[in-house]
């Protein structure tokens, strides 16, 4: 019943909380909230609440990139966040979210991985982005990507002395080259809607999550949902995401 009410509103270009179709909920970004992490941020999109923490560890580089640091992104749909989240290994959705957020950051070449080499071929910095969902009220991908990027802007490289990491002492900020913003565009009843809450997500036909760099390049795309999109839908959604990403980028 709730679903049909939401659909009736969308038909009239309205939403339950009075927002426009392309309007985000109130966004709050708090940076550097976890002292023990090398970087951190908490992002709220309405009631959706996500914390991203950055930990840096010493890792061996990949054999084909011996002088580059490694980036790993993980997401935890913590059971505290929603009655449907159960303890256990990451679900299909959690796995997808981590990989999509990772793609946006990695493919946009936001982190200068070459500056993270300690001993070529042997020791490099590993950047671990861990996304922790605190409360799930929809649009987790955008919230997580924003939190991850915000956390990266606060990230500092720890001191490395005599083969040991000296936690609490830093040698400088993590070199960030770009600011990719992820916007997920949903399609409901043929219209494009942004920042869906949990209830609205249940009635969406399909979505396209797009990471756009500040120079307009698209660095990652992921289609989801169990209905199709037309070629025109995809074109429109990319344009909308590119345009909206500029707004969100200003907040960082």
């Amino acid at each position, binding site marked *: 019943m709730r679903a049909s009410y939401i659909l009736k509103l969308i038909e009239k270009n309205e939403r339950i909380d009075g927002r426009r179709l392309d309007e985000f909920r109130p966004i709050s970004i708090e940076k550097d909230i976890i002292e023990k992490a090398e970087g951190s941020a908490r992002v709220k999109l309405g009631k959706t609440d996500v914390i991203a923490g950055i930990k840096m560890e010493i890792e061996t580089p*990949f*054999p*084909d*990139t011996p002088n580059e640091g490694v980036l790993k992104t993980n997401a935890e749909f913590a059971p505290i966040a929603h009655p449907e989240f159960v303890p256990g290994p*990451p679900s*299909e*959705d959690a*796995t*997808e979210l*981590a*990989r999509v957020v990772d*793609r946006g950051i*990695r*493919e*946009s*070449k936001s982190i200068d991985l070459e500056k993270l080499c300690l001993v070529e071929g042997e020791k490099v910095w590993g950047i671990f982005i861990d996304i922790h969902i605190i409360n799930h009220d929809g649009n987790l991908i955008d919230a997580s990507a924003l939190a991850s990027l915000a956390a990266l802007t606060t990230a500092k490289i720890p001191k490395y002395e005599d083969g040991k990491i000296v936690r609490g002492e830093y040698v400088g900020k993590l070199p960030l080259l770009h600011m990719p913003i992820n916007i997920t565009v949903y399609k409901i009843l043929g219209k494009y809607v942004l920042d869906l809450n949990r209830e609205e997500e249940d009635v969406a036909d399909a979505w*396209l999550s797009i990471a756009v*760099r500040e120079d*307009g*390049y*698209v*660095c*990652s*795309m*992921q*289609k*989801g*949902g*169990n*209905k*199709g*999109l*037309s*070629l025109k*839908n*995809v*074109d429109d959604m*990319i*344009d909308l995401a*590119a345009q909206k990403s500029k707004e969100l980028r200003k907040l960082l």
Partner: protein
Amino acid sequence: MAKIKDIELIKDGKRLDGREPLELREIEMKVGIIPNANGSAMVRFGKTMAVAAVYGPRLLLPKHLQESDRAIVQCRYNMAPFSSDERVKPGPSRREIEISKVVRQAVEPVLFLENYPKTTIDIFIEIIQADGSTRVASVNAASLALADAGVPMRDLVVALSGGKIDGTLILDLNGIEDNNSEADMPLAFTPNKKEITLLQMDGELKPEEIKRLMKEMFKAGEEIYKMQVKALKDRYSV
């Protein structure tokens, strides 16, 4: 497969394997290759080989997974340990879990799920050899296997990959191109209504490059469609 520094992927307008930028690899499709399954198919793009089997619609347990008014679709994409340059550890990796999801969503929209309440349609895909574009080979194989299983479908689903190497837009990336490309974009769509059911991209592309590349992919997709139809009809030749 590894990234190779300073590799020249296009020389004199030809790719490393001799192809033109928009040329597809040799494609082979065979339907009905696993007698035990309700439906099955093998699809090969060059060295990449995917085998799909469909079991179902069949009883779904545990009961709480059942949908009272339709079938659910479960999909598992798995790489055989010997399929790649480096041995792939058995067990689902995060990549395989994500691909299982996108492949499932690539074919779900065409199925008449409401005909089979409380059941499951299981799609299993094994990558026998991986040389780039395995997920789109899988979607083609799944489409054929579902048709072979007699599951009612609105349309077949056609899939291929596209991308950019050394500034040139290309189709059907092989392994070395996949790992060293500037962009990689797998796509699946329904031939009749041209509805996109799978779309991913990683790399760096301008929006107008994406649009241009997708148009080429839709064109090439028509060739793949003809091959699917032929493979289905060949299943029942004399």
